[in-house]
């Protein structure tokens, strides 16, 4: 039944409608795929084999009801709350914790007919760019098991790349969807800040966090995004609009869109393979008569520092609730102060502690103005500059990550080097803009390289059209579809 793994969401809907495949068969195919590959990739923290098959059987019994994700096997990052089901954020401090409610996106996936087949690994509390900060396991890149899948949503990216889920959800605070998408050769989308409800997403940095989909292609990605996006009464920061239509106009591609690229591209540090793919992308666009111009990209010098101040300031406060009183781990201490200090000292990993300490520092008396306030002002500046830019252009194209997948362990002891892997992705978070990574090509070592598009505030529809245009141009799946160690895709 392996061939069922090759179908896209619209293709699956066709099969279901014509009763050429059952949801149970499809879900079983993905479970089989997990059985073959998961022992090496370790993308999942939990697989819901029985529940997924039961849900599949229930869907089969009802028959196709027109719901957009009917019978689509989806994996979700383990920082999304699931009622009665462990939600760990890959942290010891939440080991065994079962939330009493479902995240809005979980409700919406189910309402759209999706079957949730498991919860994926991440850097602890989504803090990291390699998935190596998980307290429980190391996830490997399906394209090369010596390499990291990227992070923090590395498990969700690897699950889709290795055909262990048709689509998945991750969260992106500084690039945590787009960077692993790039490193794993899949599509990864972060919407406009406020497009997808954060209710039930365990917070890292509230003003930057956005949930978004991973998928093999742009259309699937658009379909999953449509299902999860839109205003939510439970999240005051969601945009008060219904979910936008993203998939219908995809075919128009770049038609009528003006594209900008960073003119400093040539001077930025990046892997030669990334540079080559970026340059050929711009050439190709020009050749296909898309208007393309070089611009100065806002925030390139300042986004990382701004991000590390704001994100960690918020994190230091968001993570204060893990104290051993209400749920999760508690150290057995006689005094209240010791209980706090030891629970948090033992329960959090190194990177999380580093960030909590930095966040505490930049908010503390005497430093607030110089660090936190200043970063808020720089954020306002970057936003204003992007607003100006998007008055003239519709999209910005640039690499997603300066390098393809790096070796496991390589950057662990150098936090700043690790932080710099987010250099191309953080500006979109700081400015709250929608951005997507589309697989573009392979490095000489055979590792995927993604290209990124950023659109103006609320312009996901344009973003997806551009992404579809790039996808048509790169033909990545046709050219390299079997590269992630797949058994050959459809027909194998």
């Amino acid at each position, binding site marked *: 039944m392996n061939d069922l793994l090759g179908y896209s969401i619209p293709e699956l809907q066709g099969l279901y409608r014509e009763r050429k495949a059952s949801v149970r068969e499809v879900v079983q195919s993905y479970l089989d795929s997990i059985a073959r590959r998961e022992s090496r990739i370790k993308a999942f923290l939990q697989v819901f084999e029985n529940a997924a098959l039961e849900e599949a059987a229930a869907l089969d019994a009802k028959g196709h009801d027109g719901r957009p994700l009917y019978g689509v096997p989806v994996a979700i990052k383990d*920082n999304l709350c699931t009622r009665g089901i462990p939600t760990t954020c890959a942290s010891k401090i939440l080991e065994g914790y079962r*939330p009493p409610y479902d995240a809005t996106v979980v409700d919406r996936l189910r309402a759209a007919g999706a079957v949730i087949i498991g919860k994926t690994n991440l850097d602890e509390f989504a803090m990291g760019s390699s998935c190596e900060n998980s307290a429980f396991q190391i996830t490997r890149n399906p394209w090369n098991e010596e390499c990291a899948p990227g992070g923090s949503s590395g498990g969700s990216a690897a699950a889709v790349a290795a055909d262990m889920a048709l689509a998945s959800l991750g969260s992106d605070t500084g690039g945590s969807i787009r960077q692993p998408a790039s490193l794993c050769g899949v599509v990864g989308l972060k919407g406009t800040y406020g497009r997808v409800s954060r209710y039930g997403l365990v*917070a890292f940095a509230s003003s930057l966090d956005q949930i978004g989909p991973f998928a093999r292609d742009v259309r699937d990605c658009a379909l999953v995004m449509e299902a999860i996006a839109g205003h939510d009464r439970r999240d005051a920061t969601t945009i008060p609009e219904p979910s936008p239509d993203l998939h219908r106009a995809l075919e128009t591609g770049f038609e009528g869109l003006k594209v900008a690229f960073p003119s400093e591209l040539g001077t930025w540090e990046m892997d030669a393979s990334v540079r080559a793919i970026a340059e050929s992308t711009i050439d190709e666009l020009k050749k296909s008569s898309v208007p393309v111009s070089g611009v100065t990209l806002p925030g390139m010098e300042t986004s990382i520092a701004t991000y590390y101040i704001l994100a960690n300031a918020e994190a230091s406060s968001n993570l204060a609730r893990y104290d051993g009183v209400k749920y999760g781990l508690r150290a057995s201490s006689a005094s209240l102060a010791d209980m706090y200090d030891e629970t948090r000292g033992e329960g959090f990993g190194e990177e999380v502690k580093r960030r909590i300490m930095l966040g505490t520092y930049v908010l503390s008396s005497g430093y607030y103005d110089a660090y936190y306030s200043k970063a808020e002002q720089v954020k306002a500046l970057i936003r204003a500059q992007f607003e100006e830019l998007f008055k003239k252009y519709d999209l910005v194209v640039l690499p997603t990550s300066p390098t393809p997948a790096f070796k496991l362990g390589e950057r662990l002891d150098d936090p700043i080097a690790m932080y710099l892997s987010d250099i191309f992705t953080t500006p979109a978070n700081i400015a709250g803009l929608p951005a997507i990574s589309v697989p573009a090509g392979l490095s000489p070592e055979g590792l995927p390289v993604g290209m990124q598009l950023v659109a103006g505030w609320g312009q996901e529809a344009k973003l997806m059209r551009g992404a579809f245009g790039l996808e048509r141009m790169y033909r990545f799946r046709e050219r390299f579809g079997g590269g992630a160690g797949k058994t050959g895709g459809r027909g194998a």
Partner: protein
Amino acid sequence: MPETRKYETVIGLEVHAQLVTKSKVFCSCPAIYGAEPNTMVCPVCLGLPGALPVLNGEAVSMAILMGLATHCRIAPRGIFARKNYFYPDCPKNYQISMYDKPLCEEGYLEFEMDGKTRRIALERIHLEEDAGKLLHSDEGGSLVDFNRCGVPLIEIVSKPEIRSPEEASTYLVTLRQLLRYLDICDGNMEEGSLRCDVNISLREPGGSLGTKTEIKNLNSFKAVEMGIRFEIERQAGVLESGGRIEQVTNLWDSTQKKLLTMRSKEHAHDYRYFPEPDLLPLDVDPAWIERSRSALPELPLAREKRFREEYRLPDYDAGVLCAEKWLADYYETVVKAGSDPKIAANWVMREILEEIKAGAESGKAAAPVPAERLAELIALISGGAISNSAGREVFKDMVKSGDAPGK
């Protein structure tokens, strides 16, 4: 006894008032007192991972009402901030409050004292969430009940313009009366729906401000007066003997009627306030403010003045009748039904208030006889149909039977 009169007392009050909304300030749990422990909570007020606050518009309206009643400027944009500190009654280990952009600023509260009008300036009124409750366990350790978490509070901060314990308690009485007039807080200090913290310092007349100390836990008007008096004496004693005042926090022990000094802090507090990223700035448009303004009832001082002028009541009567809005309303209904204002005042202040006191401890008990019935009774007496003392007997029967006079 230290010579306290030598110093000028500088007092500022921070009053927390629980708003009487149906639901909590950031979630839909009932904001009620006295429920079984840990039954009035949800993911939001428990601060569970992933839960988010959504602001209750009614809580904002109530805060605006108090702002208008105290002549504050209502900020066009208020910003919620996180106050970060670890304490077991605070489930997120930060409190959502307002910091540099409160909802109401620069107002004042007026009251009559010793025949003069005192005006105390207010620094600010802001909206925030209440914390849970800690109890002591007999087996050692402490117990946490999170029911109170997220009940809306307004914090009303006075400028340090209060000069005596009596003035402080009169200020608080006036504030409570206003809150009850506006029907936004029940003012029950024993149950903690109105709480008062005091800042006190002494200075030589004309001198610069002294170091201030804080008293928390003042849970009655009497406690406010006593606590302040004790602290003034303590500080005066220290200064007299050439000592220095340390910046400490004292707790009022209501059973032993004394002040306990909290263990002095090694470090000063550092709450690391920053704007709450889960909420957008609170924009209050002029229309909202105007709607609130038109919903303001006649306020106590103005009503007292009107009672004196319109009904020719003595100061004392006007004060008693206007102490509570419902009582003033009741009185006016009796008068409008045709009773002589002074006779009606006597009946309401004597018979009606006595009946209420006998009936219930709390001030908001219902009147024992409908206002129209009382007016009928007064008419019978005034018309000479029955004597005054017979009238009292009839009144007692009316209370018992609920019937109209003459039945």
